């Protein structure tokens, strides 16, 4: 057999190898079914211990106000909650759709949800799929609501520059700061701001990366 093979010329050898590999591939599965991934458990656990994978609401608000667009904000809520309210610039993605997401591996991704568990699951899926920079909005949309839209500011704090900044940020996103006076009257009015304002005043459209492939 071996002798027979070595007697053939190069072309025939190559043809035989190709046929052999083609025959084996008959028993292979679809190359698109690559849902199996390897995970570096040590790296993942280190990151979750260091909390380096969290981003606080204030930091995110700051980014949005400054118009920074170096990240992708992924909202994991269901459709109804998403259409009720979402952070300006957020894109609604369902957890199962993260199986084959359309964003690049080197993009900065911030996950937010009304459910911390969902964010954590999404974080793990993306990390396992090799995404480098995946962050979770700390406390999720509840924290966003409490800290950015309706921050509680007592009468002393409101005089400080820090307090004033909080009021401004809250108003920017269409929220109502819970100061001493408003707290009693408006407690029932903690309605989520309408999406039209101020969402359209912020440059939130992430420019699509140009397709570089093709001939």
């Amino acid at each position: 057999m071996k002798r027979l093979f070595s007697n053939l010329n190069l072309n025939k050898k190559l043809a035989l190898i190709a046929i052999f590999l083609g025959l084996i591939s008959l028993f292979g599965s679809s190359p698109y079914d690559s849902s199996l991934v390897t995970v570096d458990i040590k790296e993942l656990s280190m990151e979750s211990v260091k909390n380096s994978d969290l981003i606080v609401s204030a930091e995110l608000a700051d980014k949005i106000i400054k118009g920074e667009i170096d990240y992708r904000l992924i909202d994991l809520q269901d459709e109804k909650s998403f259409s009720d309210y979402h952070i300006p610039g957020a894109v609604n993605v369902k957890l199962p759709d993260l199986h084959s997401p359309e964003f690049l591996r080197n993009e900065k991704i911030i996950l937010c949800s009304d459910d911390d568990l969902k964010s954590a699951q999404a974080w793990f899926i993306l990390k396992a799929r090799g995404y480098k920079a995946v962050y979770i909005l700390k406390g999720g949309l509840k924290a966003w609501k409490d800290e950015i839209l309706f921050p509680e500011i007592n009468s002393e704090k409101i005089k400080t520059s820090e307090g004033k900044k909080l009021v401004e940020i809250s108003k920017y996103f269409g929220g109502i700061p819970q100061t001493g006076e408003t707290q009693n009257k408006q407690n029932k009015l903690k309605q989520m701001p309408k999406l039209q304002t101020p969402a359209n005043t912020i440059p939130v459209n992430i420019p699509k990366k140009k397709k570089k492939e093709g001939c």
Partner: protein
Amino acid sequence: MIAPFYKFGLFNDEISLIVAFLIGIGFGFFLERAGFGSARILAAQFYFYNMRVLKVMFSAIITAMIGVYYLSWAGILDLSLVYLSDTYLIPQLTGGLLLGFGFIIGGYCPGTSVVSFATGRTDAITFILGVTFGIFVFGEVFPLIEEFYYSTPMGALTLPEYFNLSYGLFVFLVVMMAVGAFVLAEHVEKKLAAKKGDN
């Protein structure tokens, strides 16, 4: 390390240009070494005197196909991240036919004309000028043909998907097709050479 490297962020846009440059040089080098810098060899394909184009291109296709299939099978390549251009059936068939006519008349396809120009052939630079002019005309009349250009859209489609075959079976069929084509090509070449000898 998992491919495609660019999509996994192994290098950025700038480095990707350097990588593209190096791969381009390699591509051009092998096209030239295969003899594709000569319009005579390229045009002979269409008259079946010289089947080199078929042999080289088909070898390249099955090598790449087997490589991609086994790499993604081994988990080294994430094929879902490899860009597939969309299919627009009728416009692409028309475009292919037009390109074929240009290929026979001019003796080059766009890539090989550049390779041939690199070796100093003047017919190649004429061809390149023609290609450039054609691109310009296409750009100018695009609004008129835009509707046709985007007609019969089929999305990013692959043949195994369309025919509902397994990818493995398809790999095998293409390999067998290639081997069959090689055998046939050699046969035709010998026959035509003998005929030529007779005359």
